Structure formats: C-alpha cells, structure tokens
C-alpha cells in the first residue's frame, strides 16, 4: 500500500487554524509576503500579514496569530479590484476574492494599508492566473487537448521519463490500444487512433497503483482520488514483465513526487523589495483552544451574507418557461415575485 498524498492546501479554505497548519508543506513555496494587509471583510480595522504561496493565500492578524485565514487557490473563482471603505484607511481600493468551497461561496476583501502599493493586487492576480493555467499539473484530465501530432504537449516543469507503446486502456468494455507517457508529474495515456481519446493522471491525484486481475488478465490499475472523481483506470501491457516494470516505475515516481511535489505554479516577483522580506513568525504553541462561544469565523465571509441554503432541485416553471428551484408548499411564481 502507498500512503496517500494529501494536499489540501490549495483545495480548502480554513479559518482560525492552529499556526502549525499554516506551515508551508513540501513543495509549497512562498511567493510573496506583505505586511500591513487588512482583512476588510472579517476583521475590519485589524492589520495583518499576508503570505502568498504557490498553493494558497494565508492571512494572519498581527495581534493574534490565531486569527488567520488559509485560502486555497483552487477555491478562488474570481479576483476583482473594487472600492471599499476600510476602518484603517478609509475609502480605498481593495482586492475581492470570490471563492467557493464545498458548495459555499465565500467572499474575502483585503486592503493594503501601504499607500499606493499595487503589490497586493498584482501578486495575487498573477499567482491566481499562474495557478489557473497550470491545472494540468494537478488535475485529472480526460479527453483534453494535450496531444499534438502523437506527442505529449509538455508542461514547462515536466520531464518525460518514458514512453511505452502498446498499452491497452481498459476503461470501456473493450480495450483501446494506445501509448503511455510517464513523466515526473503525471502519467498520460492516449489512443493511437484518436488523440482526443486520452487521459492525464498527475501523481497528485493517484490514490493507489496496483496490479490486479481483470477480465483482460493482469492489469495495472490506477485509482484516482475522491476529489477528482474516484476513477479506476485499467491498463494492460504485454508481456507480464513490462506490466510489473511499469508498476514499479510509476510507484517509485509517485513516491518521489510525494517527497518533492511539483505543483507547477511558477511566479517570480520582478522587483524584490528588501532582502528577503519578512518571514512567517516562528511563534508556535501547541495549546489547543477548545471552541467556545465564539462565532464561527466562516460566517463572516459568506458572499451572499448568509450560508447558502441547500439548493433544491430545479423544476420547470411553465409560467416563466424556465427552470426554477422547487417552490415551497403553496407558493407560486407570481406570489413570490409580487412580494418583491
């Protein structure tokens, strides 16, 4: 069995976590850190420090390290710059992060308290963009435009280790003959006859790699994580030794990747201000605070000002000719509209 490579940093939004959870994980690098950033939405009037890594945005209040936010870049749906009123700075431009995490939308507003400093905007916009455009490093992709002229389109940080022909994909009832491309980031299979028919599995999304028996005989089975759909991909290779070798190779590469993950988010600050910039304060304590009467911090950040109620299934409304959410008992479209 292999240990699962658990990378939650870019996939989750966490509030007020113990400081050890804010430590950078392996492969996570600090891109920028900024002092004097106000969390205008949740902690208006408090200055804090913002740390931008290749996986997430971390904000920590200056007064209390336990007041913090960890926003995974994957959760960010849009980044905007708008006018806000900050208690520390008055009317000013602020960074709006619209995020979505497990079905709930959160809105974050950050204000840079440094006068005329666009660094907050430029860094986060650029890092978010770098993250968005490097999804192939981290996400399972089916039928993508990743093959051109029967060659894998390489990613910037990718090194191709092996290319194995004659691999059968067992995803449907019958097999499809295709080619394996094994790199330091992922394993790609594509059909020989159709470039469109392909799958790209980053090591990051592999839950297990095993050799199992199938109706086609011994097969290499790659199981993907629940987050990427929990697919089971089967591949057959002849002869048996090749299969075993592939299994060993992919397992080892996965192990290497687990130690030194490549997340693919590349960003460099052009003008380096200061020698290295302030580091994350190394103040840590292992006191666990039992949650008390405090308001759940996530309540402060709902984009619609409330937790979205569980959306009901859509039904067709003949009056509007559109799909609407299932109406409550006794309510009609007209009655609901006339209230407003």
């Amino acid at each position, binding site marked *: 069995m292999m240990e699962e490579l658990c990378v939650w940093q870019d996939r989750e939004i966490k509030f007020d976590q113990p400081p050890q959870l804010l430590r950078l994980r392996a492969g996570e690098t600090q891109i920028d850190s900024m002092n004097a950033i106000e969390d205008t*939405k*949740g*902690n208006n009037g*408090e200055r804090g420090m913002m740390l931008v890594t290749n996986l997430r945005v971390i904000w920590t209040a200056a007064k209390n390290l336990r007041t913090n936010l960890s926003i995974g870049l994957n959760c960010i*749906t*849009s980044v*905007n710059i708008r006018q806000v009123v900050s208690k520390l700075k008055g009317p000013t431009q602020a960074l709006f992060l*619209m995020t*979505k995490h497990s079905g709930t*939308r959160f809105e974050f507003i950050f204000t840079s308290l440094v006068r005329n400093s666009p660094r907050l905007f430029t860094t986060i916009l650029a890092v978010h963009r770098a993250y*968005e*455009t490097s999804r192939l490093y981290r996400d*399972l*992709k089916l*039928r*993508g*435009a990743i093959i*051109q002229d029967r060659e894998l389109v390489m990613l910037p940080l990718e090194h191709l280790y092996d290319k194995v022909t004659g691999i059968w*994909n067992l*995803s*449907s*009832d*019958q097999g*499809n003959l295709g080619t394996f491309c094994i790199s330091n980031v992922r394993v790609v299979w594509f*059909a020989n*006859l*159709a470039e*469109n*028919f392909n799958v790209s599995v980053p090591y990051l999304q592999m839950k297990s790699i095993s050799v199992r028996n199938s109706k086609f005989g011994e097969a290499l089975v790659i199981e993907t994580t629940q987050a*990427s*759909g929990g*697919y089971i991909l089967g591949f057959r290779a002849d002869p048996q030794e090749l299969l075993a070798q592939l299994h060993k190779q992919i397992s080892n590469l996965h192990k290497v990747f687990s130690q030194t993950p490549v997340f693919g988010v590349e960003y460099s600050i052009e003008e380096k201000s200061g020698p290295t910039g302030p580091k994350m304060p190394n103040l840590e304590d292992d006191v666990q605070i039992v949650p008390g009467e405090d*308001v759940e911090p996530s*309540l*402060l950040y*709902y984009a*619609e000002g*409330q937790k979205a*109620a569980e*959306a*009901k299934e*859509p*039904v*067709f*409304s*003949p*009056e*509007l*000719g*559109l*799909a*609407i*959410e299932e*109406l*409550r008992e006794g309510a009609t*479209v007209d009655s*609901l*509209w006339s*209230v*407003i």
Partner: protein
Amino acid sequence: MSLLAVREYWSTSCGDGSEEFDAGCMCIANVDNHHSGQLKVCVGSYEGCLRIYLPRGRGYTVEDLVLEQHLDMPILQLAAGRFISGIRDVALAVLHPHRLRVYVVSGVSGHDDGHGHADGGAAVSYYSLAVAYEHALTRPAYNMCYGPFGGARDRDLLCVQSLDGLLTFYEQEGFGFGRMLPASYLVPGPLVYSPSSDSFITANANLHVEAFKYSVLGAAASADSDLRPPGDDSEAAERAKAVPRKKLQVDWSVNVGEVVRHIEVSRFSKDLPSSRREILVLGEQTLYVLKDDGAVLTQRRMTEYPMATAACYPLPTPDDGGLDALPVHNLLLGTTTGHVLVFRMADGQLVWAAKLPNQIVPVQMAVAQLGPVPGMIVVLDDAGQLTVTYLGTEPPTSALVNTEMRQLDYAEMEREQQELLQIIRQTHKAGPPEPFDRLVVTPRVPEHLDQRGPGSDEDTEDDDTLARDEGDLVQVTVCVDVLLDDPSGSTYTDGLHNITSSIDNVAQDGVTIAFKTPPAVVPQRPSINIRAIKPNEPVTARMEFRVRRDLLVPNLEVVVSACMVTLRGQPRTAVAHCRLPFMLAAELTQPVHSAVYKLVFDCPSPPSSLLALFDDMTYPQPPASNGWELPQEVQGSLNPHIVSFRFRGGGEGTVLLAKSGRIAIQTSEFAQLGLLLYELERRLQNLRAQETGSASGVLSFRDPLPLHDYFILLDDHFALRCHLRDLRKELEDRTQQYRAVEKRLLVRFRDRNPSPLQHLDFLLNVSYQQVCTVCDGIVEAEKALMAVAQHLTAATHLITRLTKYRFGLDDRTSGSLCEAFSTGIAIEDTASCGWEERCEAAMHHLLKTCLSTKDKERDRDRSVGELSMPEDVGRLKKRITSVIDRLSQGVSLHSDLDPSAPALASRPSITHQNTDAPSVTAPPPSQPAVTQQQHAERPSDNGGGSSSSNKVAVSSHHHQLPPVIEGQDEGESMTNGVGVLGWEG
C-alpha cells in the same frame, strides 16, 4: 435589487481564465446527432480552442468535457445547422477570421477501430472532430448567420459578414455570391436571418436597423464579381466590372438612434400569425420590438439596467394550440451588474429578476434543456466561466450582521489617544518632565555687620566710593549653601534616557553663583565659581557685600542665582532671594527732629518701643560685639519713641512713634522715605507675625499720595535721559566731524605736493577735545542717571506701598501694581529702552484692560507697539494719576482674572463671567480722587500729629527747575561747564 438568487447547477471554467470569449462563442445543440437528442454546449475561444461539454447532472465532473481541440485559429462564432448537403444531420460551423469550416462531430465508442459511431447502448469513449468542408474568406470575417435562405428545404445556408460589410453567401459546400453592403456599413453590426420575410437584418453605422431581401441581394450579386473567392479567373472579374452596378435596395430601415448590440428574430405577440415574426433589437439603453416589415411595435428604455446581452426563449405552447401553433417567446436580459431579468414580452412585464452567482457578467445567454429539466439558463462570461443555472425561489434568511462582533474598542482608542496627546503636549509645551536632580541654593544672611577691621581691605583700596566707618569697610558676609540634590543612585527616566548613575550628574564646569543687587550694594565679586561639587554634598560659598556712599540704597534685596551644566549637557539652575541687614545701609544716630519729608501712618497694633523694633541696630555689648559700637552720645540718647538713622549715602531718617499709636517717618530726602518705609514695614510685619501669625495690615495711610514729589523725581529722571540722549547725539556729530577732518588731513598728507593745512590740524585738535569732553559728559550723565534712578526706584516703591495702604489693596493687586511700575530690584535704563516708556505702556495697558470703564474696550487689541522714548512725561503722569484714581474707586486689577475679586459697582456686568461670584452691588467706600491738583488744597483729615503732611505737597521748592538738570542729593549740584553735566559727588 434582487432578493432572489440564481442557483448554480453546473459550472466550469473554459480555458482556465486565460482565454477570451464573446457573444457568438457559445452554441448549444445536439452536435453529435446523438439519438437521445442530448444537447451539448460548444464553446470556442478567441484563442482557438474548441470545447464541447455534456453536462450530465448537478456539478461538473472531468467527464463532462467530451472534446477539447485546438483549431489553431481564433474562433469568432459557432453555429450548428444542416450544413452538409445530402445529410440532414447537424454539423458545426466554425467561423475563423479567414476560414469558414464545417465540422462533423461524432461520438466514438471504444470497441472498434475508432471509426464506428456510437450507437445503441454503447458508451461513447471519445468524440471525433472531422472537417466536412471549408471555405477560405477573402476578407476578415466579423460574424455569420445561417438559415434556409431563399426557401431552401431541409438545409441551411451560411452568410458571412466581413469587417468591411461584405456579405458572402455559401450554399453548403459551394460558394454562392458576395454582395457589398452600402457605404453606411462602416462598422459591421449584428446579422440575423428572418425566415418569414426571407431577409437579412443588420444595423449600420447610421444607427439604423435595415433589412435586405435575399432575392434583392442575389439579384445584385452579379455586379459584385470582385467579391468572388480566390481562384476564380480574373478575366471574369474584369468583365463583371464593366457591368454597371445595380443599386442595392433596402427592404426597410428604422432609425433606432443607438448602437445595436443584439438582434434576434422571435415571436412575442400571442396572436401573431404563424407566418410572421417579430424582431428584437437591443440597443445600449433601449429595447425595440419591430414587426418584420420594419414597423416599431414596442420601444422601452432600460436606463436602470446596463444591458449586456439578451436571449429570447420559447414558452411552452398551450395544449389547445394545435399542431402548428408556434410558441411565444419571453426575453431574458443579462445586465452588466450581474443580474438576469425575465420579461414577459406579451405584455412587456418584468416577471423575474435574480442575481447571478459570483458576479458573472454574461456575454452570451441561452435557454436549453441540459440535464433532466428543460428551461435551464446557460450563461457564458468573457473569461470563459460557463454556468448552467436555474432561478432560485428561496427567499433569503436573515443575514448575519458582521459589524457588531468586530466593533472597535473606542474607549481603548480614546485612552491611547489621550496618552499619546499627553506625551506630545509635554514634549511641545513643557518639555520633558522635570529631572529629579536639582540645584538648591540657600543664602544665609547674618544679622550684623562683619567683624570690624581692615581684614578684607586688600581688594578695595582703589575704590573710595564704598561706605566706611572710621576707615573700616562696612560689609556683610553672606554664606550661600549650594546643594546638588540628587536621589542617590536611583534610576529615573528623564523622558528619553534612563539615567542610572549619579556620577553622571556632576557639573561640567562647577557651579556659578551670581548676585543681583541694587547698584548701591556692591558684592565683592560679581560671581563665584565653585569647581568641585558632588551630589548631595552641600558647598558653602561666602560673599561680602558693601554699599556705596554715592548712591542711594533703594532696597536691600539680593537675588542669588546658581547655575551649572551637568555632564550630560543639561542645565540646572536655582534662584533664591535674600535681604541684607538694614545696618548695611544706615546706622543709628541721635534723634533728629527736623525733616523735609514726612509721612504719617496709622498702626493698628503699634510696637511698644521702637528700640525693640530696631534692636539689632543697637549693637550688642562687648564682648559679643563684633567691634562695632554705638557712639557714646547715641547710646545716651536712645528713646523708645524716636529713632533716627544716618544713611550711609548721606542724609537722615527718623521714625517717630506717637502715643496715639501712629507712626511717622521723616527723611531729608523724598526717596529715602522709600527705604525707611520698606524697612519699617518689614520689621512691623515680622513683629506682627510673631505675635499673631499674620503679617498683613500692619499699616494704613490716610493722607493724600505724595504724587507731586514723585513726579518731580520722574521729571528729573526723564530730563537726565533726554540730556544723555542729546549728549550721545552730539558725540555722534563730533566724531563724525573728527573723522571728516581727519580724512581731509590724511588726503593732504598723502599728497606729494602737500597744500597748506589751512588750520585743519587745529580743527582736528578741537574736534578731539570736543569728543573727549562729550565722552566725559556722557560718563558723568550716566552716573547721574544711575543716581536718580535709585531715587526713582525707591520713590516708585514708596508710591506703590502708599497706594496699597491708602486704598487697602490686597497683596495680589499691589504686586501687580509693582509689576506695572516695573520696579525690580532697581530701575535700569538702557539707550534703547527706558523706564518711562515701559511704565507708560504698562499703565496704558492697565487702563485699557482691567481698569477700563468701557466693556468693549477690554476686547480690543491689547498689543503695545514698539517702545520709544516719549517726548515728554506729561502723558505718563496723567496715566499714573488715572490708574491710581481708578484704584481709589475700588477697581481691582484682577477683575477679569479673578472673578471673586470685587468689581466696579457701576459695571456689574464684569461679574457675569462667573455666576458663582456674588453680584457686587455695594459701592466701594467713596474715596476722593487723588490728583495732583487736589493735592495741595485738600484739608487734612488727620489729627494733629499729621499737621505736617501737607508739607509734602509744598515742600518741593528746590525741585521746580525742570529745564535745568539738578543734582538730587542735598548739597550736590550740577555744573554746566562745557556743555557737559558735571556731577560732583
């Protein structure tokens, strides 16, 4: 605006935010002609990536992307229609800037070699994209439309509009014709085909919406031969050019007056015949609905909604509509604020509005059945966010209020601000807090004179103005204790630094002790420097004081000041006052009964004996005596009711104690009254303080103030100043004359052939003599001025004390009065500023402010201009008289400062400043105004003992010579020799 939200059903980001999309980039159709009729969403980006999505249910999964292919050319528009001849299947037309391609999209199940189309229940493994045909475009394309042009059956023709307004028609695989739109089509507009009228509707740069019949376009086509696709022979083009162009006829034209964003053909009216259509035109601010003959049906301004895009969608047909009943459309409007509005176009009502999630601003919207429910709204924004939504109906629950829990702690902020302000104030105003170490000066004055003897004679031999008694110096030695008081070794903060060691605080250059005395009192040295001083170890310095014979002693006050600089560079100073013994200024003598000036006081508790009062003057008997003894004759004439003194500077003073308790003082000179009163008052106060503990109210004075004598002194002082000024002016002239003569002389001496001197040498000599004479005169005049100044000082002090006793002023008022008269230790005059102008300004100020009779005058500008020597002292005298007059009326000098002080009765409004103060309405005791004129005539209201009081007014006979400067001391006169005042002491 909207309380209702749009619910997200399915969402993905095409192109990870790095690609761009606009209207036309999305097309929803069953492009792979799947037997189930499942609709797919095709999205093409300007970056040239074509993606086809098949939303299967709530939420996006990786499998929903069924095809992703780079087409290597920007995708301007997608369209799905029956574009392939002979096949009724739907194909996908993709418009690139220079290509029009038609693709066949097919799903491939993985069980054969990849070419077999998915059929039956076989799952589709992947989708293939095959080019059916392509057209090269001669001009860069803008948009396209398709439809059964010209009544084509079961097939769709394509029409591409180029950026410069060329319409090119393609009959499937074949080229149809091209037709240039009129010149008004500078900028291409939206293009749609209306099947009911078989015409193309578009908008031009004249802000008109125009329709062209397909048949008209076709008929004119032959004229536009230059618009053939490349590859046609140029000869035909040449020929065609010769044919005159037929003018393109517009079917109809409507002026909409706005840039048109979107045109759509639909049916809004319920009773519209099935063959007719209506045309929706979306401008920037206005919605139009046109009939298909161009008539405007509805016009609606939508200023409150910044419109972004629109989509018409069909309503379900009523069941009784019959087979050929066509559906009525509703309108979906997307705004730039991220809202979706639903209009029922049959009556133009807004029937729904909701906010899109995530503030999406749609560039294209569509209504389609994706998933199990029809009527889903598909929204695409410019960054490629593709969202399938439906309208939410749950009204929002109460929103969490954020403000209350993160409220700022204003109390804390206030406290912090106060703290900071205090620091700022301290730093700016008061400076840092007082340091703990300080300098303490304690002078110790002996009661008696120093030991008689020539001991300390060595440094005074050349000075013969000092008072001596039988050759021995009359002097008093004052010991001054200096202590650097430092909390030993303790750490303290001086605001910036922590100072730990007291060693730091030893002085840099020791401590300097300086003395300020009246000119008549002379310290042996002007200052003492103590080199070594250690913290908390007192050091004693000694200083001998002598008096001058040639100057009047106005008082015996000495100000002792000590200063040092610590090693840290911080200055430390200390000041102490002391009073020298009266013996220094006068000695007892035989009673003198005659006197020129006399003042009589009432004494509520008179001393039993004057000898007791002046007990220190009667020297102790030997051996305790320090060498000083009273002469035998004085010893014998001691009388408890009369004590006389001889002042060291000359003249006598006598204190008389009447049986009625009155005390009279009389002197040979007016100013000496001041010193005598000063000493008497002090001694009475001491006595009173010993007896009752209170030192106030020892004397009262009821006679008129001797202002006349005072003013004579003042005149003398001023005349001397004028004289000195004139002398200085003359010195200026003389020196100028001397320099002029000298210059001429030098010129002559320098000359090679000297001309005769013409008595210039004599002139120079005379000038020099004159300068010397004037300088001597100035020295003399300055001496004289100083002498008169001492008299004036004493007299001024006398006047202020008398004013106090006369009108019963409190200590504070009399103190202010002294300040106004600017009597310090002694009156000092400099060339630039003299006493007269200072005093006049102060009097003026008093009269304008607290002594003013008019309320409004108090608020006037109180600033005094530059002080300059007045022309005469008449105004000063008048002002002094006025001030005393006011004071006699009971006006307090502090009515505006101290509300509790009694105010003038006639102006009760003064007291309004403090409502706590009792409203003073009782008039003050009526006091007759004391003026100089009344002075002489006023009958004495005193008893017999004061019969000589009037003499004060009339006895100044020898002073009535203002133009002539006169010596002040008895028997001393000034001689006016060579224009210079001589002072013979």
